[in-house]
């Protein structure tokens, strides 16, 4: 007997499937079957979700997350990451390889995919290490890792110093058929920096990371992509200079996608000056207002493809310390939808583009999900974009509290999140649903 779910009364919005209007989404056995313009009479046994007043969109896809597991379970684990993701509307998470042990081996990739789905409820699609042990010396067995479920390759936030190695990796990746992730940050220019280098770092006496660290690495990646014809993903980026490199690469017809962190579209380095808050120590570092504006423009125009949570959970152990000693990163799975919708409220993005940037990760990676087209896996999120949710330490489902948005009310209240047609998050009507 088939399992039928109908999501009724909502506004279907999916740029990839060309949907933008009221209708009913019909899901059978975990797959999207049809989007009906009108209502549909539910047959016996069908599950009906009333989405009145809500948007019905594809589940969100996040290209840069840390899950805590394996190795850092005090920060996050698969279950808590899944709980946070589903509350934030994310249905596919791409964890970077910087776990302990490093994800440079097929066994670990497979275990992450399998256990991830069981324990988190969402789809875990790992980005495997490009070099063994992230040492930047020898390539991993990329075909083998891809067979095990790796959707892309990269050394996470580690800089690959050897340009010759990066060139060979890009060449090889063409045969593997998976994009290569480049985190553009030249470690030799970072040189111990802990925030953006500029008048604020100077005033605070904190060591700066020049914008050139990102821009130089971005140009290098673009030049090598042109040399090799590789498909690369540049990101996360945070500077106007990296956008120029991206624009130049696109103009040459190269296949380069890019991502930006949700917080980087709002916060500037000025914020750190208020009280050295370690929640604001992130990679890439928060930049000045001009960069934030450039990022917003590039996102709206389509140059930057997707927004990532850059979810990096940390406990008090990593954050209740001096700014210099704090681990970089902020938790983001439960705030990214709100930050993107805030851009809509501020007139920086259309609602349609907002949904696009939250789901485009699937296009970057060539995944079947991230669309409401018939035949796609039924990864769906139903949310009220107008209703606001206060970010509170007590109600976060992540283990981590390292977000600078605590106490703020962000737009976008998720009512239901479905993965493969199964409801994995339902806001309790009493508390979460007005």
């Amino acid at each position, binding site marked *: 007997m088939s399992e039928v779910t109908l999501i009724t009364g909502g506004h279907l919005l999916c740029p990839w499937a060309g949907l933008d209007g009221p209708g009913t989404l019909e899901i059978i056995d975990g797959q999207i079957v049809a989007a009906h313009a009108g209502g549909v009479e539910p047959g016996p046994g069908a599950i009906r979700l009333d989405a009145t007043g809500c948007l019905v969109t594809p589940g969100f896809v996040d290209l840069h997350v840390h899950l805590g597991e394996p190795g850092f379970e005090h920060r996050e684990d698969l279950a808590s990451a899944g709980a946070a993701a589903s509350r934030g509307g994310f249905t596919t998470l791409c964890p970077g390889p910087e776990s302990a042990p490093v994800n440079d081996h097929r066994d670990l990739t497979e275990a992450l995919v399998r256990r991830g789905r069981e324990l988190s409820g969402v789809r875990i699609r790992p980005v495997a290490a490009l070099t063994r042990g992230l040492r930047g010396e020898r390539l991993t067995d990329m075909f083998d890792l891809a067979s095990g479920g790796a959707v892309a390759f990269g050394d996470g936030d580690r800089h690959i110093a050897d340009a010759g190695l990066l060139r060979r990796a890009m060449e090889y990746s063409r045969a593997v058929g998976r994009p290569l992730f480049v985190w553009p940050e030249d470690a030799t220019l970072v040189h111990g920096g802990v925030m953006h280098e500029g008048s604020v770092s100077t005033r*605070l006496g904190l060591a700066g990371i020049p914008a050139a660290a990102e821009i130089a690495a971005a140009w290098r990646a673009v030049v090598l992509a042109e040399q090799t014809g590789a498909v690369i993903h540049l990101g996360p980026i945070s500077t106007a200079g990296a956008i120029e490199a991206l624009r130049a690469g696109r103009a040459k017809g190269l296949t380069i996608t890019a991502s930006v962190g949700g917080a980087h579209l709002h916060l500037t380095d000025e914020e750190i000056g208020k009280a*050295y808050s370690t929640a604001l120590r992130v990679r890439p570092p928060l930049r000045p207002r001009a960069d934030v504006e450039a990022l917003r423009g590039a996102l709206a125009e389509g140059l930057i493809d997707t927004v990532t949570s850059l979810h990096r959970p940390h406990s008090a152990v990593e954050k209740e310390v001096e700014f210099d000693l704090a681990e970089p990163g902020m938790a983001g799975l439960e705030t990214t939808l709100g930050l993107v919708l805030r851009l809509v409220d501020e007139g920086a993005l259309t609602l349609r583009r907002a949904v696009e940037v939250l789901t485009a990760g699937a296009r970057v990676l060539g995944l079947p999900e991230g669309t409401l087209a018939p035949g796609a896996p039924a990864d769906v999120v139903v949310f009220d974009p107008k209703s606001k949710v206060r970010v509170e330490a007590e109600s976060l489902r992540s283990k981590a509290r390292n977000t600078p948005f605590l106490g703020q009310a962000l737009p976008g209240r998720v009512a239901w999140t479905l993965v493969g047609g199964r409801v994995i998050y339902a806001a309790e009507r009493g508390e979460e649903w007005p």
Partner: protein
Amino acid sequence: MRGRRHLLELAALSAPEIEHLLDLADSFGGITQRAIKKVPTLRGRTVVNLFLEASTRTRTSFELAAKRLSADTLSISGGSSSVVKGETLLDTARNLAAYQPDIIVLRHRHAGAPHLLAANIDASIVNAGDGAHEHPTQGLLDLLTIRQHKRRIDGLKVAIIGDIAHSRVARSAIVGLSRLGAQVVVCGPPTMLPPGIEALGCTATLCRDEAVADADVVMMLRIQKERLSEELFPSDREYARRYGLDSATLRKAKPDCLVMHPGPINRGVELEPAVADGPQSIILDQVTNGLSVRMAVLYHCAGGGEA
């Protein structure tokens, strides 16, 4: 914590607040001239000197200041603390706070460490130097010393020469001097001039002679070799020639120009010995004034005087 008076940075103080602390320091200066150099002002109060980075002069100055005010003092320095055993700064401070000290004086190698304590510990926090951020009592003693010699700060031209990028002394001096109306010029090799320094209230130049020309005060900074993790200038010899202060260069300043240095001096690098020990040098006055400034700050943070 709220309700406590801290001294975290001069950047947080207005001109009248700075003037008030200088006036207080002047009045405490008289005590140092007496035969019996102790007053009962802070009797029964506890001052913890938490010095987690090597320091001789600032630590001794704070210790003596607290003792002259009759406070009970507890001094902890980097080597003897649990920090070396892996305890975090906050845990160390929380343990000390369990004794209910009134004031914790913190010297720390990381910028913003005093702010971390101020937000989490129930005591007044006095910054005795945090990384490359600020050294507010040094800034105050520099201001006091200049004011005593020149009778004013407003309108003076002050040149600050050396490693501006890594200097907390420079940051406090720039902020304090500009707030009181001085014209501040900073100077150093480009590798030691941090971006956006002008926002603190100064102009910047690469040319030493331009900085020194017609200056009322020249403040030389220490080259902190122990802190430099990368090559910022080729050699001591080249530095001394281009950015050190010798008698010939000093003649380009006003005839009564004062020469200052926060110490300890690298003789022959940033300062020619003849200049360091010459009649225009007021380096030892700085040390003496350090004591009265720290007495004033402790008194102020313990709740004395008008805010």
